[in-house]
């Protein structure tokens, strides 16, 4: 019997972060700009460069703007993510 696959958010709308602190910073920063997100832990980002924590955003979110906001705040995006 195949193990059941966990639910996974759309990688196009997922931002992997380097740590839980940066995930919370990113979530708070985006919230201040009116962008809602959820902190998730996703094994796809559980690499040597990431903690597995990521932000999941609603499909249709302007990801270019999201990345710009996070860059301006100096928030480190983990390598190996879906972006």
């Amino acid at each position, binding site marked *: 019997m195949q193990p059941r696959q966990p639910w996974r958010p759309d990688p196009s709308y997922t931002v992997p972060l*380097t*740590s839980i*602190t940066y995930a919370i*910073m990113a979530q708070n920063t985006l919230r201040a700009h009116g962008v809602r997100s959820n902190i998730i*832990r*996703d094994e796809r980002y559980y*690499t040597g*460069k*990431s*903690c597995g924590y990521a932000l999941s955003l609603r499909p249709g979110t302007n990801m270019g703007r999201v990345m710009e906001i996070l860059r301006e705040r100096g928030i480190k995006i983990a390598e190996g993510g879906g972006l």
Partner: protein
Amino acid sequence: MIYFDNAATTFPKPVLTREAAGAAFTRYGANPGRGGHTMAIETAQMVYRAREGVARLLHFDKPENVVFTLNCTQGINQAVKGVLRMGDHVVISSLEHNAVYRPLEALRRAGMITLDIAPVDTECPENTVRAFEACMTPKTRLVCCIHGSNVFGTLQPAERLCALAHEHGALFLLDAAQTAGLVDIDMSGALPADFVCLACHKGLYAPTALGALVVGTDTPICTLLEGGSGSLSLEAEMPPFLPDRLEAGTVNTTGIAGLLGGLQFLRRQPRLYENEMTLTHFLFDRLARIPDVILYRRPALPVFSFGIRDMTGEAVADALARRGFALRGGFHCSPLAHRAMGTIETGTARVSLGAFNTMPQVQALLRAVDTVRRTGQ
């Protein structure tokens, strides 16, 4: 028992602290940054709010650079041992606590660094700055200063010493164990220290076993402890980014939750410093009228030392303890300060006030001191 030992740790803790710490046993019981379930995320968010609270207190815009430690001593050890290299020179003040003095003295004895102690002139800040300046050399890598003396309650000219260190290309470490929560520390303005070390269980009214190291520099810092951080888990080395780099192992979530309550308490007490100083100066001035009582410096903080003629500081504190007063006697982990102020033979009795001390308590202490000096016990 009437508590006058707030410089060691504040007591009692506010109801806000107790209630907030209690939430660590119910709402925030998970390990932050280690799991993806709801309680782990919510606990991590609670910890982050505490980082933000500490950063806000210091007018600092990088909550991610607030590193939680076991106590102020651990933060100081991490900072000094994390940046000093073989051959570096360090300058400290003559009022330093052992939290600064011992780690640096250990490095000096190991032949790693050279160390100079700049004499503080408690009457003239200008002379203190000049004394530090005279110690600076091209090899000076770090200047450390205790912001407020834990023995005599004097404030050192930290802003000017920070500027002096930076003019000479050195880092500046502020030991704010006695001042954070009482005295404004502006890391984004007048006091851009490279390291500010806090004892959260003192003026921030958090539970014990919680300190913080606030890092204001981009200088690479070697780790003192290595271990799990919840990040870059497949790497053999600690992460390069803060706070993870300097927070090996699980943080003290109970203490951090309590810190949030303590910070909330402080925000509701905008005149805490003024109120404590009113009582402190009343006590100091009335002690000055009692024969045989020895006083040293009129304090700028709600902590000061005194003595009674022909009694050691420890004997005075013991006699007062038998009468129901909690003070600290002896040397207060500060041999440098006692040498500097001429009290190394006898030590002192130290009285330190907190948010919950009252005028009747102060008056009761004055009566007890008068009795002790008359009876010698």
